[in-house]
């Protein structure tokens, strides 16, 4: 990632390393913290601090699917509050929670850059625009069929 030509501290690999680990495992397990601290030449507290600061990093395994509902202004102007309420009612969990069967993690997200096609959701890394309750149900059902 970083140029070898310049003197870049090992710590600069911490975010990329966390992303790599989470892409592989889905979360950052406890036992990984010490190893990350060693390779990035920082204390374990600093690794924990970084994990805790950024919304992306999680310490628990997520659900099999990840549904993020955009709750930012543009989507609010087009009915995001009702969509988020529908998602919570349908899945039976609050924002930031995972369904009991481990099927879906529901999250609020603040802007997916899809503001011209509001309201938007992201399901497993793919953005969907002009989403209403019916379309959201269809998207969740598609995943179960697959």
């Amino acid at each position, binding site marked *: *990632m*970083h*140029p070898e*030509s*310049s*003197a*870049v*501290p090992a*710590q*600069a*690999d*911490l*975010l*990329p390393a*966390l*992303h790599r680990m989470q892409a592989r495992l889905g979360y950052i397990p406890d036992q990984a913290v010490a190893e990350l601290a060693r390779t*990035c030449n*920082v204390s374990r507290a*600093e690794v924990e*601090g*970084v994990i*805790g*600061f*950024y*919304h*992306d*990093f999680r310490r628990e395994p997520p659900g099999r699917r990840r549904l993020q509902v955009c709750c*930012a*202004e*543009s*989507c*609010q*102007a*087009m009915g995001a509050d009702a969509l988020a309420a529908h998602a919570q009612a349908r899945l039976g969990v609050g924002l930031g929670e995972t369904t009991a069967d481990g099927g879906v993690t529901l999250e609020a*997200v*603040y*802007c*997916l*850059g*899809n*503001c*011209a*096609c*509001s309201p*938007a959701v*992201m399901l497993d*890394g*793919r*953005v*969907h*625009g*002009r989403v209403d309750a019916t379309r959201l149900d269809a998207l969740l059902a598609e995943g179960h069929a697959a």
Partner: protein
Amino acid sequence: MSVRIFVPRDSSAASVGAAAVCRAIEDEAARRGLAVDLVRNGSRGLYWLEPFVEVEVSGQRIAYGPVTPDDVPGLFDAGWLEGGAHALFQGPSEAIPYLEKQTRLTFARMGLGDPLSFDDYRAGGGLAGLRRALDLAPADIVAEIDASGLRGRGGAGFPTAIKWRTVLNAGGGQKYIVCNADEGDSGTFSDRMLMEGDPYCLIEGMVIAGLAVGADTGYIYLRSEYPDAWEILENAIVIANREGLLGDDLLGSGKRFELNLFKGAGAYVCGEETSLLESIEGKRGLVRAKPPLPALQGLFGLPTVVNNVITLGSVPWILANGGAAYQAHGMNRSRGTLPFQLAGNLKCTGLVEAPFGVTLRELLYDYGGGSASGRPIRAVQVGGPLGAFVPAADFDLPLDYEAFTAAGATVGHGGIVAFDDTVDMARMARYAMHFCAVESCGKCTPCRVGSVRGVELLDAMLDARSGGANDDTLLRDLCQTMLEGSLCAMGGMTPYPVLSALNHYPEDFGLAPKREEKVA
């Protein structure tokens, strides 16, 4: 001969089914034994018509949209390969008023070709700016930017040439160009469009910045919410290295520039430049106190240019066409164009690149076509979650940095979010405080604690507003503390939406409407 059909690969177009439309076209053409050549272009920015499909008929692009997979057989029946009439027919793309009226400089190539085709980039005028920059002394490149009047497009509007000159004069040694691609403001998507639709333009702008200040290494700090932009940029960097736009021998000049892609991790505050630098360094994204300026002690403590995507993306055009040509657009001290983004409750959402001086009313009604719901537009938030709400009475304000500042508002990154008359402005004010509480980096007290107190105060006002006897003294006092005491714009500008909501829509807060009180 096969007919060329353009279906955008842009993530917003994809979000409303462009990939499925593409497959439907392929299937239908195969079924009919017709030869079509599908091009996955960037978006033209007419998002309300996405998926926006263009068919090339005798050298002219004829548009159809919004196309669903179910429409495809009917479009073939209607003879769209010859530009046939259909309910979705929009005519020649270039003649659609929404596009025709725009002044596309930075977005000149947007949506025309395959974003990753280097031949398309060259044919569209790419590399002309870099070629010119390679012939100029660093100070002369900065002088050209100075002549253009370009100011930071991320929101702060700081003159780009002053920042560059500071880094240029910061002595020799390692320096960096950092592109702030942490576009987190709701209502904004121009950075995403440029990265997905014309990635070499951004890369060329960064290389020119490097030549101007003496930096040979760059970083693009891209938010993790943009996976499609990441994939396109990753590929674009590989191709740019192969084509000599990056690497050890820029266009055969012997000069070098190396570009790294860095992924953010979902922190809005990392769009603040010092927080962003901390993040690349592997730390919590805590805002740094200034001074020292990043221009002198930035990334890894070394002189660093931090510029927004659109700022850097405007540089190639300026070098290719001259600073004076860019400066010829705009008004007062706001020179050139801004790619405005029309979002929220509007009929014709999309990207409108226009010179500064265009009014909100023109953007909302002439381009935007009024609200999507058909109800009156009651409030418009300009400049993202830290921008003020502008009431209908002020829709004739020209989009100009100073005019907006004078009205207690901000142009920001040019995002425009419209709300119809069903909006609850007290809830919007609460949301602004809530967002600040969620996203505050926590370093300074006015922002960290103030935002939480702001939510509490607004919750109490929301509970009591039906009585109509709320008092906003404490909330205004808190806003003043945040405005004056916060370390960065997060806490320092969160009061903008809150105060503007209070000032323009007191009736939503259960505040005795002051004007009527006086009359009574």
